[in-house]
């Protein structure tokens, strides 16, 4: 196994199991659609709330996608193969996270104009929302992957992953939504975007190593 063959096989697996990614995206669409139906479908409510709705839906969709991230690899033994392959485990995990991130976030970005129409998001807020998604979502993946690796051997790990991971997601959600609200109120927002980037970079540094520890402990 080499890094490039690993990368290719990850993409292939993802492509041949499209349903997983499609499920996460469908889940996202359903959650976003629930808010206007369930609470209030007027533009006065939706325009300020749009960023929060999109971000909450995103977090839930990512949690869904991430929970099963190592499950299949754990069951068929490829996780053990990573450990004994002689390649650096943190780098493999980093590659896997990047592949997953591309698979979930890129389609979401493509769908975002649709959602901004559905939620009456003004065009000034739209680009900031896109920026927060680009800058903030990597940290969600990097933090989430730690929880996924820790709970990989538990059969019903989904609730546990949420309990472990959601506390770390709160700051990201807060900074991302307040950036969009700031631009809608005409306030400066670049500092909030910088915070999102900082959190992504910090988790980029810490998470692959922590995940590697968890993976090694899980496959014993």
């Amino acid at each position, binding site marked *: 196994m080499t890094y490039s063959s690993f990368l290719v096989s990850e993409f292939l697996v993802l492509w041949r199991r499209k349903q997983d990614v499609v499920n996460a995206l469908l889940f996202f669409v359903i959650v976003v659609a629930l808010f206007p139906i369930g609470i209030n479908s007027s533009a006065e409510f939706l325009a300020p709330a749009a960023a929060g709705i999109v971000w909450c839906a995103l977090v839930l969709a990512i949690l869904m996608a991430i929970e099963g991230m190592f499950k299949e690899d754990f069951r068929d033994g490829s996780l053990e193969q990573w450990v004994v392959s002689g390649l650096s485990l943190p780098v493999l995990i980093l590659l896997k996270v990047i592949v997953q991130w591309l698979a979930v976030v890129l389609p979401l970005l493509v769908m975002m104009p649709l959602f901004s129409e559905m939620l009456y998001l003004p065009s000034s807020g739209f680009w900031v929302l896109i920026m927060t998604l680009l800058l903030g979502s990597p940290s969600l993946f990097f*933090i989430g992957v730690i929880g996924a690796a*820790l709970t990989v051997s538990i059969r019903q790990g989904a609730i*546990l992953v949420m309990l472990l991971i959601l506390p770390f997601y709160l700051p990201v959600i807060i900074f991302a939504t307040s950036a969009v609200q700031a631009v809608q109120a005409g306030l400066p927002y670049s500092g909030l975007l910088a915070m999102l980037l900082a959190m992504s970079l910090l988790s980029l540094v810490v998470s692959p190593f922590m995940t590697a520890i968890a993976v090694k*402990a899980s496959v*014993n």
Partner: protein
Amino acid sequence: MNWSWFHKLGSPKWFFSWSKSWALPLFCFGCLCLVVGLVWGLAFAPADYQQGNSFRIIYIHVPVAMLAQSCYLALGVAGFVFLVWQMKMAPIFIKAMAPIGAVMALIALVSGAIWGKPTWGTWWVWDARLTSVLVLFFLYMGIIALQNSLDDLVLANKAAAVISVVGLINLPIIKYSVVLLETLHQGPTFTLTKKPEMPPEMWLPLLIAVVGMYFFVAGLVMWRMQSEILIREHRSNWVKQEVMENGF
């Protein structure tokens, strides 16, 4: 400096016999301090000029809130020690400490809400400190749930250590949330560098209560660690001997 005490911490047997003589005195001293501090604070300290008698909940709220953070710091340190040196006592400590910390965080939240009602007129606001303490409570619950739901002991130890270390990131957020972000919550009551702005008859009982709380928790944690050691080492000879000779 002599590091042998640190290396001895790797041995549950050594810790068990050492802590047996320490747990009760620490616990009793802590209880004594707590009783003195609380009775003094709740009954005899002068009322606040602004908040009247409702400020007295500070004598419960502040010690408990400090412990909630200190317990997590201890968890994080223990997790780090375990990941680096594989010290056997660290996961036992995490297992013993996490529920205590969770209870402390819960009491801090509840007492804070009770304090908030007469002072701010609301039980809860989504301000930075309150939210981050709520997050702290969730973190404790996550650690407890994770450690208990993993059947493989090696994996459970590692997992609890990893999540404890990662959770340390929340502590500076709690610590500086009242300083950096101007919110409803009042500033820190104690700082090491400044003289307190309260008169001594108000802060002295608080200080005693805080110290008492630390000793109280230290004693509790030692007892919980002892029973955890007995459970984990139940196959070893020294435990059998211990139970045969001093069992109750």
